[in-house]
């Protein structure tokens, strides 16, 4: 018994050692800039909500010293200093926190400014399902949390595979995702389009229309979606207002009572390409195939 336990421990240690990061570590971020970390970072600033979630999912939440104003999950990050957002950052306070790693986007220009100031920065945040899975691996290496990264990735892929197995036998549900009332929606190539696909759904938007097209209201009526997801419900959209639109009374989604308002928490889960992607697919599967999940 003891022998077997010892073998297990040795195996586990060997496994850990094989997955340990060797510092100094040099990686290229998504801008193609080199970043060298002398040791595992202990003072991390995240300027992107999904990056904050990733850091915490890998068990490094305690190393976070500051986050952007939109980072709100997990709850413990709420007490950290808020540093504005990547487009309007409080660089002064960020510098005063003396971070040894800053995670930010590749477009705002914050990365370039921090590089000038000699602060280690990784620019680039995933926009796709596959990108987010790969990003877990990158963060695992940066933070010396490769085992945790593999586990989180495994959990997401497990959730998605379980949903896929069930929805394979179910007919695909056609969905109109309403980002806002103008109305903007999502195409099959977008992040949310990919999640819908994995959850046994299909956006009524075609690939040719683009990733985030403005849709002709007539097109929505003509496509007659089975489900409408109101992503704008946290910002004042209501089921009653949506159903009162011209031509909507005859829609399958309206007749079946499947115009579904999402709350802020659900919208966050569905729009952040991070460690909760598995939860996002399960959530969509429940909304599209009630009774099966």
């Amino acid at each position, binding site marked *: 018994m003891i022998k077997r336990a010892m073998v297990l421990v040795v195996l586990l240690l060997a496994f850990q050692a094989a997955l340990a990061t060797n510092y100094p570590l040099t990686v290229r971020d998504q801008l193609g800039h080199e970043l060298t970390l002398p040791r595992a970072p202990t003072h991390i600033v995240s300027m992107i909500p999904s990056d904050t979630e990733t850091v915490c999912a890998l068990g490094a939440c305690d190393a976070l010293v500051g986050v952007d*104003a939109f980072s709100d999950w997990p709850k413990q990050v709420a007490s950290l*200093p*808020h*540093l*504005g*957002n990547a*487009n*309007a*950052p*409080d*660089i*002064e*306070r960020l*510098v*005063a926190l*003396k971070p040894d790693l800053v995670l930010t986007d*590749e*477009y*705002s*220009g*914050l990365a370039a*400014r921090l590089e*000038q*100031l000699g602060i280690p920065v990784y620019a680039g945040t995933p*926009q796709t399902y596959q990108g987010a899975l790969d990003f877990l691996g990158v963060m695992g290496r940066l933070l010396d949390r490769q085992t945790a990264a593999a586990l989180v990735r495994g959990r997401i892929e497990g959730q998605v595979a379980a949903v896929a197995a069930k929805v394979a036998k179910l007919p695909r549900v056609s969905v109109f995702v309403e*980002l806002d009332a103008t109305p*903007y929606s999502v195409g099959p190539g977008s992040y949310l389009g990919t999640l819908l696909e994995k959850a046994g759904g299909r956006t009524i938007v075609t690939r040719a229309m*683009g990733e*985030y097209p*403005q849709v002709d209201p007539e097109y929505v009526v003509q496509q007659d979606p089975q489900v409408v997801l109101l992503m704008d419900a946290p910002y004042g959209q209501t089921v009653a207002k949506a159903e009162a639109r011209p031509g909507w009374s005859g829609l399958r989604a309206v007749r079946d009572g499947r115009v579904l308002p999402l709350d802020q928490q659900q919208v966050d889960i569905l729009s952040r390409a991070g460690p909760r992607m598995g939860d996002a697919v399960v959530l969509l599967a429940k909304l599209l195939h009630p009774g099966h999940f």
Partner: protein
Amino acid sequence: MARALARQGAARRTGPGPLLVSGLALAIVVVAAISVGSVRVLPGAVLGALLDGVRGHHSGTVDTIVWQLRLPRVLLASLVGASLALAGATFQGVFRNPLADPYLLGAASGAGFGASVVLVFAGAVPWLAHVGVGWAAFACALATVAVVALLARQGRGLPAVSLILAGVVLGSSLSAATSFLMLAARDRAAGILSWLLGSFAFASWDRVAAMLPLLVPAVLVLLLAGRALDVMQLGDESAAQLGVPVEAVKLILLATATLATAAAVSVAGVIGFVGLVVPHAVRLAFGPRHVRLIPLSAVWGAIFLVLADLCARTVLAPAEIPVGIVTALVGGPFFLLLLRRQRSGS
């Protein structure tokens, strides 16, 4: 007429007084802006870091905050404020129209369009990333005003009405194109919008250095133009009779002011109302003579924008308000107030 001008000048205090007072005010505002920020640093520590830096010792967080963040930010705000106000005063003088401003000729919408194109397509088109947002904004601002001038040209003259009409129309088209880019690339929309609203959050010594070679010659040219502008207020024909080459002076002044505006917009985004409000306030306080109006507009433009940026980064700290929103919120009502005062005064 020259006597009328002289009398106008004598009615106000002459001499270097106003310029000295204004310069002193600018110095006080700059020191205050360097001392205040979202991180509390005691004035003694700020002074210490400044002195250490002057002696060549750079180390520590306070040094980074003072030398790498606040100092370039305050300097950039004052340079941009001075450029915008100078350009506004020049345009108003050239067109003899209190509403004239380089933005009116499409400089702002041109810059906004150039910046958005880079912000949206830099990922897909590598050479755009190399051009960068600043240069694209600068080039498009100049190109837009040049096209407007070509469209408005009649013979050898540049009639104000055609210029402003062409500017407004081309500007609207470019703004529409920018809005379309924002909607088409939703994930970049926030970045484009913050750029359009103007910000000094990313101020750095590089940007200060990029401004200077354009700004210094422009300021010198515009400062020298005060006397010519004063004569031109008598009307184009009278000015020509007094020996001012009116069309040439107009062209040089408009080009220089546009250059200064394009440089300002390219480093800080589209910041409105500085070019409009500051020259008006200066005219009211110190009189309408351009010899004085032009340099004082520069100084008070700097003061106004440094204060506006101080509000932008402290009022809602740690969140920043785009500085263009501050200048519009303060400048708009202030301008209306000036308008009322002017009307009741006349």
